[in-house]
């Protein structure tokens, strides 16, 4: 009897064993390893890893202004993505939610940029932003604004915003799809009843669409923040973090420290701090979302 119970007990666990093993090996172990390496001076090659205590963290917090500048740059791009990108995605989702002609074609078109590789997108925009033969400068000259022409990615005033525009162009399709799915899940009867009562489009948006879309807005904003803070492929293929440090972001700093300077331990400390920042942001957002749901 006992054997039967034991067999049943372990039999159940055997079913989750493959998933558990994958999780332990590919998620939990690397996660813990990063913490372990962050307190070492490992160069990424040597079999020995010298323990340095919290020295990496101390240096990061007290004597690494470039890392914090990269964090600020990532926050700037994230703020733009949260506002401009998501507003655009919402606007387009609202348009496509109406039964407009060719709606499916628009959906495909809007969803195309996110499926392209970041490197490819970067190369395309390099050409658009080119200071000498770029499409943007040609367009500006065509409409009489030739004075604004510049090498957009090499100018300290415009480099970060130019990169942000590329990121938003590539990313708005995700938000669009999720927001559109959310809009389509709202029962149509609510709008019909409101319309019978004489409600305008704005009133319907304010009192029906927005409240029911709050969980979707939260999901989109969390994905936007986490996705944008980790931006790097577009940066690598456009500016490489330059000119100077104007478009450096945390991941490019981590990569430079890890591959360029062979300071794996220090790079892991950067990764830990960056991960904690992302965790803190996510926690704040979850709290805000709970509060908003209660309103």
């Amino acid at each position: 009897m006992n054997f039967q119970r034991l067999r049943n007990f372990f039999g159940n666990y055997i079913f989750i064993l493959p998933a558990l093993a994958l999780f332990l090996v590919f998620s939990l172990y690397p996660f813990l390893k990063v913490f372990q390496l962050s307190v070492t001076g490992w160069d990424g090659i040597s079999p020995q890893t010298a323990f340095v205590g919290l020295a990496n963290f101390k240096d990061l917090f007290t004597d690494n202004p470039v890392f914090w500048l990269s964090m600020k740059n990532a926050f700037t791009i994230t703020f733009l993505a949260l506002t401009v990108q998501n507003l655009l995605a919402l606007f387009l989702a609202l348009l496509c939610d109406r039964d407009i002609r060719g709606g499916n074609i628009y959906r495909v078109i809007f969803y195309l940029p996110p499926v392209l590789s970041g490197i490819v997108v970067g190369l395309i925009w390099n050409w658009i932003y080119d200071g000498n033969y770029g499409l943007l400068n040609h367009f500006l000259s065509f409409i009489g604004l030739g004075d604004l022409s510049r090498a957009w990615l090499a100018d300290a005033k415009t480099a970060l915003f130019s990169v942000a525009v590329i990121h938003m162009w590539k990313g708005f399709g995700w938000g669009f799809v999720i927001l559109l799915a959310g809009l389509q899940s709202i029962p149509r009867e609510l709008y019909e009843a409101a319309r019978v009562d004489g409600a305008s489009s704005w009133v319907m948006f304010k009192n029906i669409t927005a409240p029911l879309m709050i969980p979707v807005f939260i999901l989109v904003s969390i994905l936007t923040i986490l996705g944008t803070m980790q931006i790097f492929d577009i940066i690598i293929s456009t500016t490489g973090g330059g000119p100077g440090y104007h478009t450096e972001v945390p991941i490019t700093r981590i990569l430079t420290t890890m591959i360029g300077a062979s300071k794996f331990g220090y790079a892991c400390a950067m990764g830990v701090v960056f991960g904690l920042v992302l965790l803190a942001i996510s926690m704040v957002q979850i709290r805000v979302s709970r509060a908003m749901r209660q309103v």
Partner: protein
Amino acid sequence: MVWHWLSDRDDAFRELAARYEGQTGVKVKFDLYAPSEIYSQRIKAAVQTQTLPDIYGILGEKQDFASFIKAGFVEDLTGVLNAPDGGVPWKDRFFEKALGVNEFRPANPYGVAPGVYGIPLDMTTIQMVYNKKLYAEAGLDPASPPKTWEEFLAHGRVLRDKNIPRFVSGFGEIWMIDALASNWAMNLMGEEKVFKTYEGKAPYTDPDWIRVLSLFKQMADEKILVDGAVTMVNKTAEQTFANERAAFAFNGSWCVNVYKGMNPGLDYGVFPPPALSRAHPMKIWGGAGTSFVVNARSARKLAAVEFLKWLTADAQQAFLSEQTQNLPSNKNVSGQIPPVLAQFSVGMENVTHPNVYPVHESPEVTEAFDKGIQSILIGEKTPAEVAQAVRRVKEKGSR
């Protein structure tokens, strides 16, 4: 098994592997991992899993090379290089400068046992190139590129007056800035003073370093660089020059193959970076372009060495040079290279490279220096400000 990152040479390598198998019956497999950043990560991951191939290349700083050796993943080839091969030592086949990149001298700062740890496949030098057609259009003599900095500026002004874009380089890849700046630094103050700075015995705020940084300020003031070059990757810079949208470029000898692919009719010449002073020679970056090492833990070490001997023999080197338009590391076949490529080999006696320096600057200081030059080029910082910033990073590293 050979791992490499050279996408432009992959076909030639495969052809040579097939020939080797035909001649010896030994099968050699070349695996390409490109681009180079991916390759670097691949071999570092393979170190951890102890799955490095029999032959591979190491990219990056000399410090990385040393780490691979100290971890026991690179065979010391000094013995086989000195051993007779067909009557003469294998090492006599190579240009001395080509072997130097792979050599660790006695009492080196890395604590590596002295010896030669890699085999050079080809040579490279990084110099200036100029478009002869654009030169003629501007009324300049296509046979007389600038020799001095003043001439460079003067020729630039002539080109500007004819609305010809002047200078392009992939300064988005900051090592290219480093190469050009260190050329000028060594020309202006000599190698010794540069190395003293690296050792921390001379400051970056020294007037000579300020003068080097000021050259980039002059470039910015004269608008010599084409728009966007500050963040441009070298591939884009190569396209710009190949499409005749710039009269000058700073590029390596590998560009001969690249330009041939982009614009076979491009008429250009090669010259060393314009000199600032006659007091010291104009050093140029170069030496071994690509080197392979033998995995010390491979069970097929001897077979790997035999293959590398075959690969660096005259016939194979001539084939590689012809196919890939790179300077061969084997000095016996240097007479068989195209004229433009031969121009890149002029001045080989002044070739240097960070991997052969007796002292090395830290990556943090190098990055601060190169990024600082980017800031100068966009008019954001002055040479003095950059020098101060680099000095601070240097002092932090010394603490």
